[in-house]
């Protein structure tokens, strides 16, 4: 640190050149860090621009609404519609939330309220490691372990029960009980979003002042009543934010879904039939795509961008609101 204390420097010219080089460094450093921070913004705008620019020919050709609503995806005749992929994305994400949310909240409650002290750390680490496992490994687990189980113990028995029934006979009936399909993708997505939602929800519950909890227990409340009437009302909005962060991840997840979704281009009425999501469609077709098909895939990317980013932005706003309290 002594270098900058200018007390004993006999040569004034040297001193001046030194202080001017200090000033230069100071300015350069400030500008460099400012530029790098702006680069983060630039990345976001770059992504938006690339997607909109790439998808533009398709939106012009079929119209924005026409592209979203059409169900034909015919590469030979250059007809592209996003609806089967959008429906697959939404359905699988919805299944993921239905399965994943109760489990994640259960884990968060266990970690913050029920767990004995010695168990807390190992379980927390396990949950966080689950989030670090690459998505391709989940894909392999889904394809080689989960899909055969789903085919054997879910689809086959379920087919016998629901066959011929109205509505359920369509939604839950699988023509080919192969184990791959939208529902299996939803289960894999549930497993993948659980660690996210659980660890954020745990942090949120941990932030609630202990006094609140203790006073409720002191009144004779059971754990259920503390959770239901004290913790959740306190954490409410940000728990929804945490769930939406999980939803954002489920909507955009690619590799794991590509393994198990079946990659069919048609729209099926059943959640057990093969389908595709926006991300899996892009992953499957992009490398062989030419001309308008590539634009159509970029247009799908554009749709995915706006959907996930709206969800993520809303999620961050909801989570952030509680941190202020």
């Amino acid at each position, binding site marked *: *640190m002594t270098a*900058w204390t200018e007390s004993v420097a006999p040569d004034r010219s040297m001193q001046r050149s030194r202080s001017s080089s*200090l000033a230069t460094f*100071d300015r350069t*450093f*400030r500008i*460099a*860090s*400012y530029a*790098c*921070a702006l*680069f*983060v*913004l630039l990345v976001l705008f*770059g*992504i938006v621009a*690339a*997607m909109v620019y*790439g998808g533009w020919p398709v939106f012009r050709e079929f119209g924005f609404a026409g592209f979203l609503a059409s169900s034909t995806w015919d590469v030979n005749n250059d007809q592209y519609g996003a609806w089967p992929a959008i429906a697959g994305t939404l359905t699988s994400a919805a299944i993921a939330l239905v399965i994943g949310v109760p*489990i994640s909240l*259960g*884990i968060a*409650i*266990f970690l913050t*309220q029920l767990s004995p002290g010695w168990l807390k750390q190992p*379980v927390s*680490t396990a*949950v*966080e*490691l689950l989030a*670090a*496992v*690459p*998505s*391709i*490994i989940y894909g*392999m*687990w889904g394809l*080689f*372990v989960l899909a055969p189980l789903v085919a054997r113990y879910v689809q086959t028995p379920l087919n016998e029960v629901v066959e011929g029934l109205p509505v359920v006979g369509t939604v839950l009936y699988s023509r080919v009980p192969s184990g791959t399909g939208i529902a299996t993708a939803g289960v894999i997505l549930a497993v993948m979003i659980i660690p996210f939602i*659980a660890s954020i929800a745990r942090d949120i519950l941990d932030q609630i002042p202990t006094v609140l909890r203790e006073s*409720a227990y002191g*009144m004779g*409340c*059971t754990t*259920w*009543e503390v959770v239901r009437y004290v913790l959740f009302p306190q954490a409410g909005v940000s728990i929804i934010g945490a769930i939406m962060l999980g939803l*954002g991840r489920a909507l*955009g997840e*690619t*590799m794991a879904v590509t393994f198990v979704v079946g990659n069919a281009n048609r729209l099926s009425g059943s959640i057990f039939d093969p389908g595709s999501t926006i991300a899996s469609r*892009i*992953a499957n077709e*992009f*490398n062989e795509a030419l001309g308008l098909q590539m634009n159509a895939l970029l247009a799908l*990317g554009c749709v*995915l*961008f706006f959907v*996930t980013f709206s969800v993520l*932005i809303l999620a961050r706003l909801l989570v952030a609101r509680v941190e202020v309290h």
Partner: protein
Amino acid sequence: MAIGTSTDPIQGAAVPWRRVRPQREIADRMLKALCTVFTGLGVLVLGWILAMLIWEGVSALSPDIFTRTMPGPGSEGGGLANAIVGSVILTVLGIAVATPIGVLAGTYLAEYGRASKLASVIRFINDVLLSAPSILIGLFVYTIMVQPLGGYSGWAGGVALAIISLPVIVRTTEDMLRLVPTSLREAAAAMGAPQAHVITGISWRAARAGIITGILLAVARIAGETAPLLFTALNNSFWFSPSLLGGVSNLPVTIFQFALSPYANWQQLAWAGALIITAAILGLSLFARYLLKRGSR
């Protein structure tokens, strides 16, 4: 609060002292049981995945994996040497690009921008990018690098991985710099140090361990990324060119292609690759976690 209604004193008097109404007890027991079961389920899935990887992967491991290149379709033997080296190069490239930018951007947020409007916007955008779908980053880099340059390249793959790791590094750098006490900065500033020197000499030095942890976490994040590499570095069955132009072999895409292939030895290699990559990533995350905990003590 609604608690008052559930502990109705008159009803409470009807049951013996120190006992809870049955409905309340059942609800409570059910919550506890469900939460415990769900937690067990979460841990079980992790164990299941690890067991699957070890079961299938260990039998496929052999010295050949690290010394020989990927086998052609239908041919026996072979290894993953080119894929492993390619993955290491791409990851190092990504981190090398992202680290200076990320650390400086994090520094801006923590030291210069602080509570300013621009800083809070950047902070928010960065948090959103943190969970952005990685396939979109792949498409983005395809449009800005692969298409204009006329071909897949390791450089494009490195840039895609850099964009994915950038928000992680920005976030951890900012968080770690914020933990540095202001009094340290004030002491240095009072000695006449310009702000840039305060930051590099005091703040960075104090937060060094945390920033390095952030970089390790970023490595763990990008090492297994597949989707962004599909459209940028693609893959290569042979040794890639040292200029990194053309497809560069890498583990994640190889695992993806081999796992879905009809050849038994390719599937074996996919399992071996999956075991290697997961062991590396989980080991790295545990190490980063350990560093973080040791630092905070």
